[in-house]
């Protein structure tokens, strides 16, 4: 799978987003402030928004999935049991992955948003996608769930995963960093070289860079290891 954005421009009134770049196999992180256009890039890559100028070309056949920020936008079942069945999955591994043991008969509208989000992500991650787009996957999750998600997303994917988020705590290991700056999608490059170019890194990463650390990646674990090396 390969997605190429060439001379892309999307206009909404006075707001404009431009994008050029190539997404290939691996883990990508697209960051930027709220309202900067991360969801628009996700929709462009998914083929759900047509640019006003330029082209978005997807090469490679296979299933694509776009996970939206609000899990209720994906729900089709009335109960947890029906929801898991709608994905064609066996209930036990999903329930265990989502931390929802014993909740199989629960009606979805009685689940908290955190529970719904965990259920949705467990279903999404149990399936195989050639291109997986996760728009704000950390929203509504508490700290342990965010940490568990980052650990899961840190594993090298079989195909392409693109994470779009404004979150700057509990980030996963990734292969390539992208940032939206003043309406333009910027490819910062492979993660190690991209870290010093990142204009809005997480506070823990910025602090480590200020201390002279050179992290291999952006997760808290990588930064801790880099600080240990710096301390000698």
């Amino acid at each position, binding site marked *: 799978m390969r997605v190429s954005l060439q001379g892309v421009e999307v206009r909404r009134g006075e707001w404009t987003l431009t994008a050029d770049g190539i997404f290939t196999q691996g883990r990508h992180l697209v960051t930027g402030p*709220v*309202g900067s256009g991360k969801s628009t890039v996700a929709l462009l890559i998914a083929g759900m928004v047509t640019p006003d100028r330029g082209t978005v070309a997807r090469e490679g056949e296979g299933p694509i999935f776009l996970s939206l920020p609000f899990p209720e936008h994906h729900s089709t079942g009335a109960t947890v049991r029906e929801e898991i069945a709608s994905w064609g999955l066996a209930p036990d591994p999903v329930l265990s992955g989502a931390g929802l043991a014993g909740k199989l008969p629960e009606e979805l509208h009685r689940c908290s948003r955190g529970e719904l989000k965990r259920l949705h992500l467990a279903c999404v991650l149990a399936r195989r996608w050639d291109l997986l787009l996760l728009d704000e996957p950390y929203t509504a999750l508490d*700290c342990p769930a*965010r940490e568990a998600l980052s650990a899961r997303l840190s594993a090298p994917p079989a195909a392409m995963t693109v994470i779009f988020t404004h979150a700057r*705590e509990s980030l996963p290991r990734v292969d390539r960093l992208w940032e939206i700056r003043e309406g333009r999608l910027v490819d910062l490059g492979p993660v190690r070289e991209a870290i010093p170019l990142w204009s809005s890194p*997480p506070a823990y990463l910025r*602090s480590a860079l200020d201390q002279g650390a050179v992290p291999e990646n952006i997760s808290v674990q990588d930064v801790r290891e880099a600080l240990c090396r710096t301390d000698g």
Partner: protein
Amino acid sequence: MIRVEGLVHDSLAIPALEIPDGETAVIGPNGAGKTTLLRILSGITLPAQGSVRVDGIPPREREVGWVGEYPDRNFLFDRVRDEIASPLRFRHLPCGETDARVQEVAEMLGIARLRDRSVMALSGGEKVLVALAAALVSRPRLLLMDEVDSHLDPDTVLLMEAALRRAGCPAVIRVTAQMESALRASHLVFLQGGKVLHQGPPDRVFSALEDTAFLPPLWRCGR
């Protein structure tokens, strides 16, 4: 001072809790009862058992402000200035006084330039500031905010926190899932399973959470 005594409601069980004035962050896992506690502190929900007092008076008899997780779902008016003015207009305050207080709070929060904009055309951060202005225009004794920062990036959260401090509300209690934001509060309450497991200054509470996912990343990386 907010005092909770003998509180029992759904999964919440809090024998006694005192929350000082200043900025308090309520943290804890999903399902801990954070939003339920906030609703009871606000007076929106009456507890099955126990009492809440704000300076010795029930919250429903005090001026209390509320900002929810999705501020734009509660907007009633299209124009920013009308939304901010609405709590005062519903009380039939004179137009001159209403306009002056809208102006005052809009300037304090740095959103005076937005007054004639449509609320639907605002960014996520701007919507939060407009909802905050509508809550503060009544000069509440107590302001409650339920995961308002969950859809904001950390830089916008910093702007919101600075605006809150300028507003000078005596007591602000906010539920947050951003631990580095919680670190900047003056007081923390950590809830789990409906119980207050830890409370006090952030340094003390986070020291008690040393081996958990709630420890702010900055602390994990040696601060």
